[in-house]
């Protein structure tokens, strides 16, 4: 892999008439420790209203760290060393997220920007019912709401994500994995946020269940108009789902373009490598070692280590 060439980081043309809702400028996050590790390097992103932005990369590339830093959820030893994160509110105000104090931050989180985590089982409290957890969010952030209003709102969001409101009396372990993830999305929707960050929301799920949830996300986005940052390592999924995609490698965004362009004309070798890592279901059989026989090296670059050593050297 030759990754020494400078990353071609061109900001794609912003969709016309689209107003940004979240701007990240030159964000740097480091992990302090015996050795300081630069987890996010000079990342600049713009999220527009109603846009689905895909964040692709493999484990440890810094994509989750970036998401957590944007929402100020990072904990020591992670630290934002420089850069700005600005939230452009619906009413025209701009919020500098990195400068928010604790109380302001608490009010901001979830009501304007919410998150959906990968492990729904870990993110939901196992000892209380779904309803209690949903209502808890409302009592914290909307203290003025009456009990009836809270209950109605909970039923409403569950209905939105396709969970029968009757299920809200269940405990998390009584729900299937897909159902739990839907409840998580419902919880993220409760306060009508403008941005939703989804960190590998479907990775632990079945393909069939995943498809249903992706459909739901797209439908809700069209109905409610929030913007989504969708984090995953599954590039084909992002290509199908998102409007624009940022590919991350070692803390840097190496390619940032519309899904269409990224798929048709990937520029960075790493993007190409990622694309080649997913064999096409219906495409030509033969791009991989199997079809070409044991003696010949693999065709394209998906397996660099097998190329580095002569194949079958131990024969």
């Amino acid at each position: 892999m030759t990754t020494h060439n400078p990353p071609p980081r061109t900001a794609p043309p912003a969709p016309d008439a689209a107003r940004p809702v979240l701007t990240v400028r030159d964000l740097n996050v480091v992990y302090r420790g015996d050795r300081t590790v630069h987890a996010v390097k000079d990342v600049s992103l713009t999220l527009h209203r109603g846009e689905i932005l895909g964040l692709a990369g493999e484990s440890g590339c810094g994509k989750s760290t970036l998401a957590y830093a944007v929402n100020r959820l990072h904990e020591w030893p992670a630290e934002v060393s420089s850069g700005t994160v600005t939230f452009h509110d619906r009413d025209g105000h701009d919020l500098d997220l990195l400068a928010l104090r604790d109380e302001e931050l608490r009010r901001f989180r979830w009501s304007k920007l919410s998150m959906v985590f990968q492990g729904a089982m870990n993110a939901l409290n196992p000892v209380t019912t779904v309803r209690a957890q949903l209502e808890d969010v409302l009592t914290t952030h909307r203290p003025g709401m009456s009990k009836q209003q809270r209950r109605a709102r909970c039923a409403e969001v569950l209905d939105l994500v396709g969970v029968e409101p009757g299920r809200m009396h269940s405990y998390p372990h009584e729900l299937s994995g897909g159902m739990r993830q839907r409840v998580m999305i419902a919880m993220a929707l409760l306060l009508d946020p403008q941005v939703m960050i989804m960190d590998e929301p479907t990775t632990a799920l079945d393909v069939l269940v995943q498809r249903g949830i992706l459909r739901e996300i797209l439908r809700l986005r069209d109905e409610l108009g929030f913007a989504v940052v969708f984090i995953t390592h599954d590039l084909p999924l992002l290509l199908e789902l998102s409007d624009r995609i940022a590919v991350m490698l070692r803390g840097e965004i190496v390619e940032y373009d519309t899904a269409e362009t990224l798929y048709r004309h990937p520029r960075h070798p790493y993007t190409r490598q990622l694309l080649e890592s997913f064999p096409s279901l219906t495409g030509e059989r033969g791009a991989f070692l199997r079809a070409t026989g044991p003696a010949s090296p693999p065709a394209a670059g998906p397996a660099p280590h097998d190329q580095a050593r002569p194949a079958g050297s131990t024969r």
Partner: protein
Amino acid sequence: MTTLEVRDLVKEFTLRSGLRRSTLRAVHKVTFTLVPGRTVAVVGASGSGKSTVARMIARLEKPTSGTITALGPDGEPVRDRAYRDHVQMVFQDPFASLNPFHSIEHHLARPLLLHGRAEGREEVREQAAQLLERVNLPTALMDRRPHELSGGQRQRVAIARALAPGAQVIVADEPVSMLDVSSRLGVLNLLARLQQEDRLAVLYITHDLATARHFSDDILVMNRGRIVERGPADAVILDPHHPYTRTLAAAAPNPELRGRLRSAEPEPKAATDRDHLTYDHDAGRWIDIDADQPAAA
């Protein structure tokens, strides 16, 4: 020539909730054979029973009924003791399948010693080094601990461990689903190369139809414990007959079909009237395994 024969395999689990007991049939009458030098993929969603089949073949679970027979090169059934040499398994989670306390050498040395393939420290080290080379790992890794290796490297060690007793059958239970995307194809290619070099029979358990197609000769599609479709890889994927196979194929992300998520048309629902039937591409007809005769198509 057959090296492993699985016939009418059934597995039932007893579920206890309070005083009530119920049985769950996780695997229902699964039959197939493995042949040296060929890969059979078992695909299905989670809970389809595919992992249970793998664990029964590796003798980690006892079948409720049915038989698993391993056949040696001479065509004779392999006896109990030798079964462990004959059939080996590669597990899904590379972080859990190596003991964090032991060095890489230990993981390779134990099966070598246990199956009498090497004696004495020198010979064991030498053979372990050869195994590491075969899976494209530097021999310097021998004295490392699992946590110092990346996921892909660990899975290569797990493959080397499976090769150590001289296994003829490798059961690979989702061997790459927990690896980083860029190391997946490398591990699969390695498995494919070793298989062709050693004429291994591989059972590849996966939920990923695409790699199943590219890395196997035959595919069995499982749903709720039953095989619903079987046949040559290309036939099953490119010309699926069972509604469940079609649903599964349609669910895989496909960049070429951008925009279909937005379409108003509902998800194709698997029809229920064929759920208990199996479509066999080799025979070219539907089969009802419970009736043991061809079903009306």
